């Protein structure tokens, strides 16, 4: 081999560098994530197992059906109709994105960007600053009378 004196240490240095995360984190497993499960509701859209595994696929299909096919109701395996909406249905029970969604997502380093547009429950409260509150009141006082 040409330049073995350079190549072999080079390869070793490369392997060490690439595996640094393994060495520095060795034996230090992060604790298992514990997402907060709503107490007052017993049943989710489907079984807990299924939701844990398939929620992202289900949401993907929901958004397709709602936006593109104008289908709004999901019939679950028990025949129960459910309003297909992340922001208004899922988060009705799971009232905290931080304590529910983020807990696992952070653990597996998944960064779904649902919340770039959809408003998480805690932000709904946080957004309402003083100025905004007055605007809300103004808007509610202007509630239009419906006709037709």
């Amino acid at each position, binding site marked *: 081999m040409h330049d073995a004196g350079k190549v072999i240490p080079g390869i070793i240095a490369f392997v060490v560098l690439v595996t640094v995360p393994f060495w520095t984190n060795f034996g230090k497993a992060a604790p298992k994530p514990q997402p907060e499960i709503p107490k007052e509701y017993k049943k989710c859209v489907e079984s807990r197992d299924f939701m844990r595994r398939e929620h992202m696929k*289900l949401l993907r*299909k929901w*958004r397709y059906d709602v936006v*593109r096919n104008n289908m709004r109701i999901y*019939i*679950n395996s028990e025949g129960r109709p459910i309003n297909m909406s992340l922001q208004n249905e899922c988060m009705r029970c799971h009232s905290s994105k931080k304590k529910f969604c983020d807990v696992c997502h952070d653990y597996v380093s998944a960064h779904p960007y649902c919340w770039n547009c959809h408003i998480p429950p805690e932000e709904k409260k946080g957004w309402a600053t003083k100025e*905004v509150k007055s605007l809300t009141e103004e808007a509610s006082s202007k509630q239009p009378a419906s006709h037709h």
Partner: protein
Amino acid sequence: MGVLSKGEVKAYAVKPSEKGLTAGRWAMVIDTRVCRKHEPCEECIHACHHLHNVPQIPYKKHEIKWIWKDEFEHAFPDTAHEYANEVLKDREFLLLCNHCEHPPCVRVCPTKATFKREDGIVMMDMHRCIGCRFCMAACPYGSRSFNWRDPRPFIKNPNPSYPTRMKGVVEKCTFCTERLAEGKLPACVEACKHGAIIVGDLADPHSEINKILREYFTLRRKVHLGTGPSVFYII
């Protein structure tokens, strides 16, 4: 249909909302005579922009609007002329997406992020838009806005039950599909105390909107382009 992976949900079943309002082809009539009587009224604009979390961006180049007002010569540039009477010149016209029968924006969209629903509504799939802005070049009505920056800091009073948008996507009026599905009329229609905005089914010859169109003289914007706008104006 085993659509979802080997889980226990074998049949993925969905259905439309039962209380939803439906039509063969949604259309809108705006009675500009009523609008003029109540100027400067902007309640429909406020209602729409509030409900849909449309940001109020002061920098005009980055402005986002779904429904707004403009003068006759700008709303109908090919119909306006210098001898028009003062009434026409003074009147402000509500402008919004025309939900065209042959929408150029749908024709040019490279991902079907903009598409025409069976009921005639030209809809946007915000999850799919790549932000190429071809639709903005294609729309002859200037009905589309692009999110040149994060819109959230400019939404002072958000509606918590409707999403915002993020930077890099195009948006426009959706004819309130989310409200129609709940059996409610579009926000602008409901917001107008004076009944200046009427929506209905153009495909049904007995519908209220068809009666109005038969009775009154109406204009549509730039009909000569063949887009077939679904918004009519009583002059």
